[in-house]
């Protein structure tokens, strides 16, 4: 019987699952990984708020150092008798594998909730498919699939009830992003029903099986050939009983909620001849298509798989109609080399066995196919293509659908015009910027509409790959019936473009249905806007007979003090134009939603937004659409014709949002992409950009040093080269001695600039006469772009300064070194990228980078473009990302190979010395390669060597030497990542790599949180700061990784903060690279997750140092080797109370606001820790031979 009091909520899949998991567990062992992190974040927040589980107690939430650690803690907690869960995805699930075999082997009930995500192969992908869950099939876990947000909520509970009864642990999985992040209307299971589903006898029995010294036993023995096999089979009956137990739980659930599920649910014609078998969110798409096609006379059906393991042959055969002649099994995964994907093979074997045994009369034709990898959208048109294929006499096996495979021709033809969208569903698509609040407002709209009785709503949000200036596309559906369409809108009857400039980059009307409404946020009114539209936009408006409206939401927002937050204004216009709700009702609802969403930010913000809503409609105007297109301009090409072929064919398509249309043949076969394609993506995200005052500039180089996006370039050159310079090109005589006649220019790449302002903040040159004017000042970009394009073209024609003549030893000199990391999609004002760029300037042409997964791997390698680039000689950083957890080992592998091949090259060179010339061979073998000039000379020698080797044809030794000859130029191997990697998940590897003594350089860009996944606490998170997973404030001090590394004695260690002392940073990078052993640099990196205006990032770094929180230090074993003190403290004694640094940041001040007493106590502790730490450091600095390992570790323990 359904519970009439059931409450509806509009939530996403993660929240729907966490709601149940939290209530039916006692312990959660967690670790962040996209797209599952929000489940763990919610659990942590609920704990901080004191929310209880169904037994009235607050679950314990424990963040671990990795998913492997989470699985271990979970295993232990289960063995000790607690109901324990975890949330994970992708590589995270794979790191849990060893424990999963154990947990299942020991028949331990638990549910792992998995937002299924692609496992990294030729590339990482954060998006959804089943490659992760398919990898755990042999563990013995039961696997229960959810196909929608509602099901994810329901199955979370069914899994928990079943595992407790069956003793077999469960993976409950649902599609990452498509289900985990889709906002939809969910009927919540009432707490009473949750309580009824979980039988206390099962819970008590679980506790009774726990390890307990009161009645001890041993579990986890080692078994030998005599008994292991039998032991493995001893649990068979538990696995065999599981399907029946799940079916019973589903029945019980149906009785409590009215929602009936089966292990295999059949939908469609009872006499269907063609059937699809599918699992996950794709099921809903197939179901919709089946209903539509059957309504048009087809006889087709769908078997929806819910319990995938144990795979119940009996239940599958019962679900599959006897009439069925052809079956297509859809797998959202790929198993190269197999005779089919896993679900396909299961279905084939079950049906074949039934036919062989005679329990089924005929063997239908069964084919398998792949769809939807990495959240590739899967829509009814693709489903129809599969059913159409099944009509054929010889349907293709091993097909793909949703892509164009023009290489191995696996893909099915899809009729893109086929749709099942019902007429009563409003389909709205919104193009916005991350910063303008479009997504937030749309989430509110979904809630507003769904909370109106008799209406249902769905929201799904697509983000681009940049962290700054990112475009968002919101897909919203509203209708009188539950929305079961887990795919992107193809044909929208409402399209809103919240940023006028998108019209020049994106075909925003591509999805507009005939007669649709088009709302444009426009600085031009209804009478002027037409003339500012590209011709193709005009043509689309006319040909599709769009109803066109404009509003100047940007001005309206600014007038009420909302700056660029246009969201509530545009939301009001949406409601007014779409008519989804009566206008007054909608406005009241928007206002209520504003109060709810912004209430925590204060009354004023709420009132400003209310004022925005009230004023919105007066500014909304319909545009009278002319009969014909009149524009004489068109959307400019996304990249110029001069771009390389690959960029034009592939990269540009992705940049346009048309990557889905790229054929298989255009893709690299092994994930290898050309360097330096970011330079072709002129994103123009800044409204204000820096402008140079050459008359005030002291040419110090600090602006370029700190620029996170490498948009400030300096060159010096002979004055005569200014001939032909554009009129606006700026230049000044070099102001240093020794450069007579030389001129200096700073060039700003304004189209790549994010407008962060760090350059202006760091510029030390004030005008002596004009208040507030520096040598760099921010100015409105409008009107500057054309001029600067000309200037850039001229600047790029000036010769690049000779690296061997640049002084690497000071910041001023470094500005003349070309950055080989440029224009990344990192946040505006990012604190990490200046360090990455510096690395590329100093060592870029001989640099290999192993990059841990995280922010730096995303802004460093997230398509469409690549910011790591190469110089005019074609040399540049060779960059790769392996995983999150293994980066130190991965980089060490670079070194092992390099050392091996260097040795090989030297041996071969000696061997071939006579043929090559003894002098050249000796010069190469004995060459010093510390200074840039020495490296330059060595390069010339190696070039000469290559010429000679090429002449030695058919000499195998020469061939071999040629294959490794590049190693004769000193390689710089850097292992780069964030603190989540270095302090937590990768710490074991990092420690081991340091202990090897090998010559690798480790750069930790320490933001003190997991920045990439949204600010979860790491062991670098400081005492007293809040973070996700530490919502109540972190209660332990950050780990002193520097001291731990110093304890080895042979590791070069530096702690740097560019904003406090750029010169020390530069020195540390150079010393680390020069040290022939391992080195570790901890680089303070301000971050958006710290909660302050990043324009002040550098001065905040300075305060971190001035307060003693982040002492600058260098431990150089080379100094000890020459009798000098190795430990050097580079920053003075603290001059600022810790509070004056910390409380500038929301991460600290938020705790002071929410828990003032705790914050005060933690502040005192933090201040004392700083004092103690500084004292220890000062003592170390005074030791002639530096501290001993035991002294260092003693200090580390104290802190």
């Amino acid at each position, binding site marked *: 019987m359904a519970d009439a009091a059931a409450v509806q909520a509009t939530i996403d899949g993660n929240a729907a699952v966490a709601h149940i998991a939290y209530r039916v567990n006692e312990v959660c062992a967690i670790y962040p990984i996209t797209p599952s992190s929000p489940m763990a974040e919610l659990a942590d927040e609920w704990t901080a708020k004191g929310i209880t589980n169904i037994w009235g107690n607050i679950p314990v939430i424990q963040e671990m150092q990795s998913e492997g650690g989470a699985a271990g803690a979970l295993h232990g907690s289960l063995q000790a008798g607690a109901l324990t869960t975890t949330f994970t995805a992708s590589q995270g699930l794979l790191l849990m594998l060893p424990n999963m075999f154990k947990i299942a082997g020991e028949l331990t009930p638990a549910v792992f909730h998995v937002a299924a995500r692609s496992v990294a192969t030729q590339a990482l992908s954060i998006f959804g498919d089943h490659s992760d869950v398919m990898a755990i099939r042999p563990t013995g876990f039961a696997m229960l699939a959810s196909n929608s947000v509602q099901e994810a909520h329901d199955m979370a509970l069914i899994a928990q009830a079943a595992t407790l009864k069956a003793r077999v642990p469960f993976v409950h999985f649902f599609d990452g992003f498509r289900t985990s992040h889709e906002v939809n209307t969910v009927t919540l299971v009432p707490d009473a029903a949750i309580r009824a589903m979980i039988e206390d006898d099962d819970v008590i029995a679980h506790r009774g099986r726990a390890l307990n010294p009161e009645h001890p036993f041993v579990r986890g023995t080692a078994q030998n050939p005599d008994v292991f096999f039998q032991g493995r089979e001893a649990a068979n009956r538990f696995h065999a009983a599981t399907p029946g137990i799940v079916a019973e739980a589903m029945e019980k659930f149906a009785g409590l909620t009215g929602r009936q599920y089966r292990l295999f649910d059949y939908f469609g014609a009872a006499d269907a001849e063609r059937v699809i078998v599918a699992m996950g969110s794709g099921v809903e798409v197939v179901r919709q298509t089946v209903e539509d096609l059957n309504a048009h006379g087809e006889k087709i059906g769908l078997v929806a798989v819910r319990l995938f393991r144990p795979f119940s042959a009996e239940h599958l055969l019962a679900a599959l109609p006897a009439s069925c002649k052809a079956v297509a099994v859809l797998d959202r995964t790929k198993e190269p080399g197999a005779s089919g994907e896993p679900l396909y093979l299961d279905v084939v074997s079950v049906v074949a066995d039934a036919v062989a045994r005679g329990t089924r009369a005929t063997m239908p034709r069964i084919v398998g196919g792949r769809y939807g990898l990495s959240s590739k959208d899967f829509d009814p048109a693709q489903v129809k293509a599969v059913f159409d294929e099944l009509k054929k006499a010889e349907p293709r096996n091993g097909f793909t659908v949703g892509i164009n495979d023009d290489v191995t021709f696996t893909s099915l033809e899809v009729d893109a015009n086929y749709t099942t969208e019902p007429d009563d569903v409003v389909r709205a698509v919104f193009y916005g910027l991350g910063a303008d609040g479009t997504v937030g407002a749309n989430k509110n709209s979904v809630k507003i509409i769904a909370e109106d009785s008799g209406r249902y709503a769905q929201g799904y949000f697509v983000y681009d790959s940049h962290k700054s200036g990112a475009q968002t596309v919101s897909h919203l559906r509203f209708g009188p019936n539950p929305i079961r369409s887990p795919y992107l809108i193809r044909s929208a009857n409402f399209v809103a473009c919240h940023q006028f400039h998108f019209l020049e980059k994106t075909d925003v009307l591509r999805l507009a249905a005939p007669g649709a409404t088009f709302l444009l946020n426009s600085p031009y009114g209804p009478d002027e806007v037409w003339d500012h539209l590209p011709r193709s936009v005009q043509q689309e408006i006319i040909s599709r007979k769009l109803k066109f409206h404009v509003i100047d939401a940007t001005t309206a927002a600014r007038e009420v003090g909302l700056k660029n937050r246009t969201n509530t204004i545009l939301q009001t216009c949406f409601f007014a134009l779409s008519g989804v709700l009566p206008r007054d009702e909608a406005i009241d609802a928007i206002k209520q939603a504003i109060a709810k969403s912004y209430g*925590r930010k204060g009354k004023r913000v709420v009132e400003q937004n209310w004022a925005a809503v009230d004023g919105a409609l007066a500014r909304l105007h319909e545009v009278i659409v002319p009969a014909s297109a009149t524009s004489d301009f068109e959307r400019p090409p996304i990249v110029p014709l001069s771009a390389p072929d690959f960029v034009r064919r592939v990269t540009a398509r992705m940049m346009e949002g048309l990557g889905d249309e790229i054929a298989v043949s255009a893709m690299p076969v092994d994930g290898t992409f050309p360097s330096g394609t970011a330079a072709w993506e002129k994103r123009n995200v800044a409204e204000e950009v820096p402008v140079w005052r050459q008359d005030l500039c002291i040419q110090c180089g600090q602006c370029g040093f700190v620029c996170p996006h490498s948009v400030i370039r300096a060159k010096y050159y002979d004055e005569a080269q200014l001939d032909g310079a554009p009129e606006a090109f700026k230049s000044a005589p070099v102001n240093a001695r020794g450069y007579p006649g030389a001129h200096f220019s700073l060039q700003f790449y304004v189209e790549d600039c994010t407008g962060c302002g760090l350059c202006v903040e760091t510029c030390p040159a004030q005008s002596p006469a004009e208040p507030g004017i520096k040598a760099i000042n921010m100015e409105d970009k409008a009107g500057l772009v054309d001029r600067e394009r000309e200037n850039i073209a001229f600047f790029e024609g000036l010769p690049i300064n000779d690296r061997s003549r640049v002084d690497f030893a000071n910041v001023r000199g470094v500005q003349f070194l070309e950055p080989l990391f440029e224009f990344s999609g990192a946040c505006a004002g990012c604190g990490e990228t200046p360090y990455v760029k510096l690395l590329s300037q100093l060592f870029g042409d001989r640099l290999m980078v192993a990059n841990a997964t995280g922010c730096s791997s995303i802004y460093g390698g997230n398509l469409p473009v690549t910011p790591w680039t190469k110089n005019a000689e074609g040399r540049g950083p060779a960059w790769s990302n392996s995983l999150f957890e293994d980066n130190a080992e991965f980089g060490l592998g670079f070194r092992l190979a390099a050392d091996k091949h260097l040795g090989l090259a030297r041996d071969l060179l000696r061997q071939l010395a006579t043929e090559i010339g003894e002098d050249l061979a000796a010069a190469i073998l004995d060459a010093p390669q510390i200074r840039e000039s020495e490296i330059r000379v060595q390069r010339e020698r190696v070039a000469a060597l290559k010429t000679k080797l090429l002449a030695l044809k058919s000499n195998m030794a020469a061939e071999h030497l040629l294959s490794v000859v590049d190693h004769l130029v000193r390689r710089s191997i850097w292992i780069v990542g964030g603190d989540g990697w270095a302090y937590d998940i990768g710490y074991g590897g990092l420690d081991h790599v340091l202990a090897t003594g090998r010559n690798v350089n480790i750069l930790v860009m320490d933001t003190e949180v997991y920045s990439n996944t949204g600010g979860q606490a790491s062991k670098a998170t400081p005492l007293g700061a*809040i973070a996700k997973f530490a919502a109540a404030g972190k209660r332990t001090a950050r780990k002193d990784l520097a001291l731990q590394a110093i304890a080895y004695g042979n590791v070069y260690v530096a702690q740097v903060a560019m904003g406090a002392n750029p010169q020390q940073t530069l020195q540390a990078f150079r010393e680390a690279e020069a040290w022939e052993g391992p080195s570790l640099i901890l680089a303070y990196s301000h971050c958006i997750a710290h909660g302050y205006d990043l324009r002040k990032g550098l001065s905040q770094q300075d305060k971190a140092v001035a307060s003693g929180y982040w002492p600058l230090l260098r431990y150089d074993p080379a100094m000890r080797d020459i009798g000098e003190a190795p430990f050097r403290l580079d920053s003075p004694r603290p001059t600022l109370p810790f509070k004056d640094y910390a409380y500038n940041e929301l991460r600290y001040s938020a705790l002071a606001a*929410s828990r003032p007493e705790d914050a005060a106590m933690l502040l005192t502790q933090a201040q004392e820790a700083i004092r103690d730490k500084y004292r220890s450091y000062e003592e170390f600095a005074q030791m002639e031979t530096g501290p001993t390992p035991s002294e260092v570790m003693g200090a580390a323990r104290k802190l």
Partner: protein
Amino acid sequence: MDLTTSYLGLELTSPIVASASPLNRDIDNLKRLEECGAGAVVLPSVFEEQIEREEEILDMLIDRGAESFGEALSYFPAQTAYAFDTSHHLTLIEKAAQALSMPVIASLNGVTDSGWVDYARDIEAAGAKAIELNVFFVPSDLTLNGRDVEARYVDVVHSVSSAVELPVAVKIGPYFSSPGHMAGELVKAGAKGLVLFNRFYEPDIDPATLTITPSIELSNSYEMRLPLLWIGVLSGQTKASLAATTGVESADDVVKYLLAGADVVMTTSALLRHGVDHMRTLVDGLGAWLASREFSSPADIRGRMNHRNIANPEAYERANYIRVLQDFAGR
């Protein structure tokens, strides 16, 4: 010595009030001030702009980078209540009200009549016994005439006074064409007390950096002459309580203000210079002075030398000015 005093309808154990300063953020300091005989305490100001700006900044910070990137839809725990400094202020009022038996007066600093009236209600709910409204702005808009400026003051006072039940004292500066008349208008608008005078924020210029530098100097006894004059003029001519502030360094200064007609005397700079225990020096000094003249309470001397009571009221007026100048020239 009984130093009991009435101010804004509140009973105070002494007429010396610790005016708003950073010292008053600390509950221990407040307790110590009470032990030393302070009659009341004014808590540090919350600025109208502060309330607005903090809300705006927080809005920006929480939302910056949010809903932009698939892996990080936010950067802070979603359900944490992020309170502002203003809520610290409310917490301070609550704690002070609980810890002290002397009245706690909350201070608000603003220039408009909207936006922060709600906050005045919050102050009332937090346990303050009165509000000191500090109206200060520089009418740098040269189209504003004197009447406009005066009207702005009156509007603010009216808005806040009508929003709360608490007595509202208004702290103003002396720069009106007719400060006495202005005082009357403010009282008509709802002010129950007048605090004379506000010391203006008068920015300085740093010639090295070409920047405007904030500058607030501690007051000294010399600066008490102007408030002394206007306390003297207003005493006995207004139903509002009068509080004197500025330049109270010693017990003699307290006595002077009381003689001129102040109901209470406020001190900040002296406490910042000498520490909170200086309150004891002032209170004891006042008691000693009263005793030495055989007065039994501050009421005995209050207004004894105001404009009405003294034999030569021109001492407060222009004639006195002329005489002083002439005397000075003749020295």
